[in-house]
């Protein structure tokens, strides 16, 4: 009997263990080999099975533009199912923040898919990001690189581990209040750069309002042209501002790209007016729009046929028009503080807008513009990845600005019905917006 129980226990333990498999996931043919090169011989010699897979290969069959991967449910479903099928002890992919936007997005996709597979009961070990060699991309930024260093194992960052308990989520604490060092002799300038209409208010509306209240000049910038994101008629009729639809018909009634641009830009003008400024639109195309009730992504030929007005795609990265446009704005206004979104957000347009703002800041500085600091809004993403923690550098008490910021947010009626909740985090009875200082030209790079 005892032996039987021991055997059953051993079997259960065995079944809970990952398989002796290394799963290496790349974007393009050949990449998986490079990603695994530092370790595969060693593991093979120890009896491990090495499985290589590419996103567009027969294993995953993802024939999509990879810069859109994290917002497409079928991509996450395919990758998580693949992980679930192999129960790998180690999963290897690129590193988030690499210079290549597809590489970065695949890393993000694999991270989220790996977590999904774990939730579904996969027997997993660790997830490794290959430490990038290049000194470009935002992972090269010291502020971000240093948060990965505690989990470095040779050529990899072990960003997640299913076999040991995850560290406890950090208790929310306000970071130190900002110590501004605006350039003397002129009115200080704050420039906010958000991805979509309404991201501005959600991410840093309170801080923007606070600085304007202290006499700063405000520059309000929206990166994308918002070709997607209006599902008219989908809002709760009980909301005073959201009572669009007399028939009380719920959506989906997505509006086509041109209309969505118009509606959301008009709402943005109203929102900016609450702060007393006029918005600047970089008009970078989003990665998808709607035709009828179908989402049309940029890898669909019909997306090009539709040809929505815009200045290239927001995920074009350093090759796109956006960098030149944003750099020109930085040179024109020479902001003391740039407020933007967080690098590596799941929504690729959010992360790429942060990347754009950061690169434009660096380029403008290199070309002689006297710029100050880049602040990236954490919006609660302090636990950046399971084992990678990103603590804020600056906490701005925006309690007094919450009403104004929320009133500005309420102008985006197509998004929130005109009755949005407060988006700032509450700590100890006060509302805060917390930021990472991603670049600092007031006294050296952070």
């Amino acid at each position, binding site marked *: 009997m005892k032996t039987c129980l021991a055997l059953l226990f051993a079997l259960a333990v065995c079944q809970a263990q990952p398989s002796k498999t290394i799963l290496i996931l790349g974007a393009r043919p050949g990449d998986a080999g490079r990603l695994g090169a530092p370790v595969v011989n060693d593991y093979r010699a120890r009896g491990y099975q090495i499985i290589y897979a590419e996103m567009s290969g027969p294993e995953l069959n993802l024939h999509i533009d990879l810069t859109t991967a994290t917002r497409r449910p079928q991509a996450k479903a395919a990758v998580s199912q693949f992980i679930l099928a192999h129960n790998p002890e180690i999963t290897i992919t690129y590193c988030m923040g690499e210079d290549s936007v597809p590489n970065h997005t695949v890393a993000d996709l694999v991270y989220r898919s790996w977590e999904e597979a774990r939730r579904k009961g996969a027997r997993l070990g660790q997830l490794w990001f290959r430490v990038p060699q290049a000194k470009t991309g935002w992972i090269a930024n010291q502020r971000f690189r240093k948060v990965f260093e505690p989990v470095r194992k040779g050529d990899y960052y072990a960003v997640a581990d299913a076999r040991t308990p995850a560290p406890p989520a950090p208790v929310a604490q306000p970071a130190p209040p900002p110590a501004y060092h605006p350039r003397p002799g002129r009115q200080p300038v704050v420039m906010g750069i958000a991805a979509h209409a309404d991201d501005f208010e959600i991410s840093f509306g309170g801080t923007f309002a606070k600085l304007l209240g202290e006499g700063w000049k405000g520059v309000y910038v929206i990166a994308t042209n918002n070709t997607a994101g209006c599902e*008219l*008629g989908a809002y709760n009729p009980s909301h005073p501002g959201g*009572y*669009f*639809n*007399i*028939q009380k*018909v719920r959506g989906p*009634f997505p*509006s086509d790209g*041109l*209309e969505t641009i*118009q*509606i959301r830009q*008009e709402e943005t003008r109203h929102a900016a007016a609450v702060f007393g400024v006029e918005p600047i639109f970089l008009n970078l195309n989003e990665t998808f729009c709607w*035709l*009828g*009730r*179908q989402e*049309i992504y940029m890898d669909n030929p019909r997306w090009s*046929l*539709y*040809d929505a*007005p815009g200045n290239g795609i927001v995920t074009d990265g350093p090759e796109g028009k956006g960098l030149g446009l944003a750099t020109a704005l930085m040179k024109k206004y020479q902001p003391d503080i740039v407020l933007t979104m967080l690098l590596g957000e799941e929504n690729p347009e959010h992360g790429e807008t942060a990347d754009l703002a950061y690169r434009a800041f660096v380029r403008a500085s290199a070309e002689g513009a006297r710029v100050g600091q880049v602040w990236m809004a954490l919006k609660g993403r302090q636990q950046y990845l399971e084992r990678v923690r990103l603590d804020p550098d600056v906490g701005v008490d925006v309690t007094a600005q919450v009403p104004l910021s929320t009133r500005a947010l309420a102008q985006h009626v197509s998004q929130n019905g005109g009755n949005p909740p407060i988006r700032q985090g509450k700590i100890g009875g006060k509302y805060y917006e917390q930021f990472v200082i991603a670049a600092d030209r007031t006294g050296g790079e952070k």
Partner: protein
Amino acid sequence: MKALLWVLLPMAALAASSDYSLVKQWGAFGSKPGEFRFPTMVAVDRSSNVYVVDQHNHRVEKFDSNGRFLLTWGVQGSGPGQFNYPFGIAIDSHGGVYVSDMNNERVQKFSPEGKFEGMVGRYGSGNGEFKFPYGMAVDSSDTLYVLDTLNYRVQKFDSNLKFQGAWGSAEAIGVRVYMPHELTVLQNGNIALSDRQNHRISIFTPSGHLVRRFGGYSEAPTAAGGDFSEPHGLATAANGALLVCDRYNLRVQMFGPASVFERLWRTAGPDDNSRHFPLGIAADKAGYIYVTDHYQHCVQKYGTPQHVAAMAR
């Protein structure tokens, strides 16, 4: 009883179906003469020439009633005679052609040959300013009505594009009309407006007093006449009937005086609302009905069996 209703309701809808059928279709995706890229509205002049707003080619194309290409004008830009995603079109009693140059926030007027004759508008909320002009229509005395969509109002101009008045606001245009899209002048001079997101039609006097609203929401192959799923283009037929493009039901509906439902027919195209979108509509004096399909990049001409017989002769 319930089961009987399920049988009878579709039959009622079918009984109201029309004998209109497709008699001609022209156009395909492209930028050559006679081709289209996402055409929007259509208008017909007194000689039954057909003018089509070819939105993503930023131009207007003119055809005879059989679809023979006659001429085109416009390129993308903001100068006189240029367009930036135009949307609506209307023709006055002298053949003057008005085009709502949507993303340039203005209305332009042209001769029947496409010669630029004038323009009005810029971004704003003042008289003669627009926040995205969409549909347009001309009444019997050549007053031009322009749907100033994101100002939630209708502006009126004379044939020289001189501002004559405006009515409506986000609230007052018809109590929370949402995303109004197109309008037409009815035979009695009233204005019909497609209140798109409320899935209904609103009728106003020329000075903006609400006369009535009608329409309910339904989206199904058997949706009853008088129900809509996003009504878009509107037109008034020579016999006074009101024609409505019912977007997600992929059909046209026809209403008689007092907005009484008369008939409907499904427009030609796939059963796929991302590839089939009856958007603009117009009627000629002979009773033919022209529909632009925004996603099929074409114009469809519909007629009755009498029309078909006449065409065969």
